[in-house]
């Protein structure tokens, strides 16, 4: 692969800075090449000499990445923030479930812990929204967003583990209002609180992501299309037309993952994969349970894991060029179809998935081999 392209791929800095650094490096390489070629070497040989003189592009990119690092203590603090969100969430749970707290009142607004906890979660989300938009306006990528998304994913997973009907809550009204004689009382369960927090955080994350996408020329069209699809979906829901919201959510989740980890280096591939894996497992659990509640857990989990592996492989395959990101969107749809087929006929689903995995694996193995050989050549 071309030296400059490899350097560009490895360089993990804001797109504006990246453009400038790549342009500067490109001018340097051109001039070096001209110098070497003036000594009688062919263009190909000159390129090899230049690559050897410059050294490993990944190392240069990493050093430049460290200098242009956007994250400092602020980003670190922001990354920790969602985990501190456990405190207000616990406050809300204690405020509704602890019998000792019942004396504080039966009405929602008479429960100070719920009120304060809820206010803190909202404050956390709004802080994230403001900081996120501010960072994007300053051409900085909100790298801390990943931990917010990871934390938000954790909430419904915990709720699901503790309550097997929890995924149903995703498509139902969450709160049970009962008339206790002196007006409506509120009896939320703790898993519902987790879902509420999840919705707050995920909605704000998606808003930040949409904003980032709209500012990026490459993603603008895709974002507008996704927003149009969501608007269409919402419209169908209003008219009581049954649509697959789980698929729509999965697509949105993949877009979110791509934005957060867009233009990543190899070092972040594992993080990106983990992010997609967790998200996909969650959506598949929700999806499988809503549609097929009688399915045995073993079959469901096997199917989910296989689909998640395919998603990761698709991501790895498509991670180098932005045009390939489209493959992931298509991949999500294919995996959903595979999943549907699997339910109709396990053999057909399994065969299709195996074919997809093999198709994706061969080029990955080949690419890794080529990459290693190139690196060895440069090192020599």
């Amino acid at each position, binding site marked *: 692969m071309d030296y400059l392209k490899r350097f560009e791929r490895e360089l993990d800095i804001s797109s504006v800075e990246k453009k*400038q*650094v790549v*342009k*500067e*490096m490109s*001018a*340097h390489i*051109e*001039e*070096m090449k001209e110098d070497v070629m003036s000594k009688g070497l062919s263009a190909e040989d000159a390129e090899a000499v230049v690559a050897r*003189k*410059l*050294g*490993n*592009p990944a*190392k*240069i990119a990493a*050093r*430049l990445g460290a*200098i*242009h690092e956007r994250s400092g203590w602020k980003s670190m603090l922001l990354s920790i923030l969602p985990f501190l969100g456990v405190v207000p969430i616990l406050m809300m749970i204690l405020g509704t479930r602890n019998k000792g707290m019942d004396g504080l009142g039966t009405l929602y607004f008479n429960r100070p812990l719920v009120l304060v906890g809820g206010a803190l979660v909202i404050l956390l989300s709004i802080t994230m929204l403001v900081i996120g938009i501010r960072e994007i306006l300053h051409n900085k990528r909100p790298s801390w967003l990943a931990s917010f998304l990871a934390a938000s994913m954790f909430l419904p997973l915990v709720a699901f583990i503790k309550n097997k009907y929890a995924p149903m809550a995703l498509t139902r009204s969450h709160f049970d209002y009962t008339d206790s004689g002196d007006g409506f009382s509120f009896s939320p369960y703790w898993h519902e609180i987790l879902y509420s927090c999840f919705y707050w955080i995920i909605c704000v994350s998606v808003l930040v992501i949409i904003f980032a996408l709209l500012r990026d020329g490459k993603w603008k069209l895709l974002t507008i299309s996704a927003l149009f699809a969501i608007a269409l979906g919402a419209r169908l829901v209003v008219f009581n037309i049954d649509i697959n919201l789980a698929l729509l959510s999965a697509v949105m989740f993949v877009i979110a993952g791509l934005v957060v980890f867009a233009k990543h280096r190899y070092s972040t591939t594992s993080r990106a994969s983990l992010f997609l894996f967790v998200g996909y497992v969650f959506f598949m659990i929700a999806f499988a349970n809503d549609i097929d509640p009688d399915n045995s857990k073993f079959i469901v989990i096997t199917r989910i894991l296989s689909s998640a592996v395919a998603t990761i492989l698709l991501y790895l395959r498509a991670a180098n060029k932005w045009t390939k990101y489209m493959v992931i969107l298509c991949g999500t749809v294919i995996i959903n179809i595979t999943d549907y087929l699997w339910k109709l006929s396990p053999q057909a689903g399994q065969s299709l998935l195996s074919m997809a995995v093999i198709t994706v694996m061969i080029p990955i193995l080949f690419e890794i081999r080529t990459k290693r050989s190139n690196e060895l050549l440069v090192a020599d």
Partner: protein
Amino acid sequence: MNAPKELVKGNAVLMILSCLARESMHGYRIARAIEEMSDGYFTLGEGSLYPHLHQLEKDQLIEGYWDTSSGRERKYYRITEHGTAELARRSEEWQRFYSKLNVMIGLAIDPV
């Protein structure tokens, strides 16, 4: 014969600032100037040049600007006031270091 890599690495900032104190230059020119000024003794790894330049720019010791007067768009660097002061400080430090080291080496070779 080339200077030991470690010594060049450790003094790369001083070399770059010394070049830019003479005139504004782009990255490629800086690499060549270092070689020319030292009669080929100092060879700064070209890959490590840009991290140094960008760090110096971040520390406001040099400033970059784009120029197309040569027919090709290039990023030039010029030394700032802070950079000039830093160059003077580092040069003085180096002179002191060099003289003390010379004394030590002299004593080792020819003990009193």
